[in-house]
């Protein structure tokens, strides 16, 4: 996967190990736990958007599926957390397959709308509670804690190590995928679908597979959410969350997995910080987002990396201006 990535992984591990000792307070670790949980979804979304060139405004729906199925199975049907998590993931994969098959034929804003519709349908179903399981808008609580190899995750520190270990494993796997035949195929879809097809890339299948992968990661993050918070209701899984996920991926730089992680960490920490400003928080959220996108149109991480020279030749054209692609398509 290349020296840069190995170096990146090594640095990440070092940082992750050092940070708990620098931050004397479990609260900060708690924020980092959120970074990790969101990071899981965002990595999958980055693969789907930045590499595969698709868009999803419905990933909150997969998180909701993970959280609700984990929660319902453990609290109402006596499952232990891990099997419940597995069932949640399988169910999410199934849903992603059924939803993805027809929707992934759609393009651009139409795909955005269809995925958005999917997310909202899950949200509405959770609130409407058709089977008397979700607790309606009030949700339900009492979801048991997760335990790993006999260790109950009952503190921020334990969650921190656990979530980030999972993130690291997923990151390595995804980096492997990205720097392989599959990753090239995905990027070729982003680069130009007709040409990708002509080279023998089964674009429809790759799009579906990536969608499934990102849905599984969303479901995983959702299950973690349920066990971490212990309470689930529909409110956190609305459209706002989908948009927030999208923002984190794009702000970091969607054409790079590292960007997704960086964007997630940055925005999770910043939005926490901006709450200090109370009434001005919303304003600053918007302000920072606009400024970042103006200064680093291809995302903070990718943009910064390019400016440092590391990615110059490789990434020069990842942010192909909308105009250029439009002209190419319009003139042809």
């Amino acid at each position, binding site marked *: 996967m290349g020296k840069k990535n190995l170096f990146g992984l090594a640095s990440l591990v070092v940082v992750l190990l050092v940070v708990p000792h620098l931050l004397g307070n479990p609260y900060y670790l708690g924020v980092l736990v959120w970074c990790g949980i969101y990071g899981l979804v965002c990595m999958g979304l980055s693969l789907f958007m930045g590499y595969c060139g698709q868009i999803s405004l419905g990933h909150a729906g997969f998180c909701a599926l993970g959280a609700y199925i984990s929660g319902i199975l453990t609290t109402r049907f006596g499952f232990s957390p891990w099997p419940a998590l597995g069932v949640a993931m399988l169910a999410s994969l199934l849903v992603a397959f059924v939803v993805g098959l027809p929707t992934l034929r759609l393009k651009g804003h139409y795909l955005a709308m269809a995925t958005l519709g999917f997310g909202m349908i899950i949200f*509405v179903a959770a609130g409407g509670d058709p089977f008397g399981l979700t607790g309606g808008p009030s949700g339900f609580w009492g979801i048991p804690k997760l335990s790993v190899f006999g260790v109950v995750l009952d503190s921020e520190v334990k969650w921190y190590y656990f979530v980030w270990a999972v993130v690291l494993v997923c990151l390595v796997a995804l980096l492997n995928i990205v720097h392989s035949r599959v990753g090239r195929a995905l990027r070729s879809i982003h680069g130009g679908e007709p040409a990708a097809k002509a080279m023998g890339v089964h674009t429809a299948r790759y799009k579906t597979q990536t969608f499934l992968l990102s849905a599984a990661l969303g479901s995983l993050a959702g299950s973690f959410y349920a066990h971490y918070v212990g309470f689930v209701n529909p409110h956190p899984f609305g459209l706002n969350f989908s948009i927030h996920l999208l923002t984190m991926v794009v702000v970091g730089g969607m054409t790079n997995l590292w960007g997704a992680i960086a964007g997630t960490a940055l925005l999770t920490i910043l939005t926490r910080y901006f709450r200090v400003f109370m009434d001005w928080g919303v304003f600053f959220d918007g302000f920072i987002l606009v400024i970042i996108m103006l200064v680093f149109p291809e995302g903070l991480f990718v943009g910064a990396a390019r400016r440092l020279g590391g990615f110059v030749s490789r990434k020069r054209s990842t942010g192909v201006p909308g105009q250029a692609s439009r002209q190419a398509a319009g003139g042809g």
Partner: protein
Amino acid sequence: MELSTILQYAFAGIKIGSIYAMVALGFNIIYNTTGIINLAQGEFVMLGGMFTVTLAKLMPLGLAFPIAVLAVAIVGCLFERAAIWPARRSSVITLIMITIGGSFLLKGAAMQVWGKNSFPLRPFSSEKPINILGAWVQPQVFWIIGVLAVVMILLTLFFRFTLTGKAMRACAANRAAATLSGISVDRMVLLSFALSAGIGAIAGIVITPVTLVDYGCGSMYALKGFAAAVLGGLGVSAGAVVGGLTIGLMECFGAALPFQGASSYKDGFALLILFVFLCAKPSGILGRAAISELKKF
């Protein structure tokens, strides 16, 4: 179901659908010149309502209306110059992110200016409901429908018969060719923001008397308007109207479905229909397939 009940639902659907249609029209205008969905469109609706509420305290409604529309159009222009224009060479997704940021900015600013309460606005004419074949209809509903019709007619005339309108359509059809034939694409984008902000404001002003306006109400309009624009076919004005009315009617008749708790599912119901429809016809009711291919993220 009795006729009067059906009529009652239909009027509710048309009322709210007309607003969605106007928001969708705004989406389309910007989409045509830039290829992006301006997610701050809902905030233009909110600002229209807010400005009018404030202005109506100082002057007659007839005067407050145009001033508010103008004010919001100016906000639209400022937004375009400050945030969209500097990023005009960025990818579609970057621009959409900027509009999301813009919507937060406008929302936050509105919260500072007007606070967090909801404000009412008096109806344009009498508040007394009219009985039509057994259905009670507020007179404001006719204002809403009428304003939508007028906006639609004026827009059609503008795009069809004025030089500027034709130039904007040229940008939509082929940007490169439009530039070559001497059209200032930059100016057209600016104009499209002014126009769509103005239309958004009009929607906000006519709906406020039947609902209320608060700083956070824009996102809902943006969502429904986006759904309407996509359902109708992005970039097609007639599609916006068809899409808006369809979604409005689906929501109202969805809520009226004869089972327990139907109203909890009405939004989901409308979106489900939209979802299924898109899977069957990927470019919306009146959209052309070719256009949907152009935008890459």
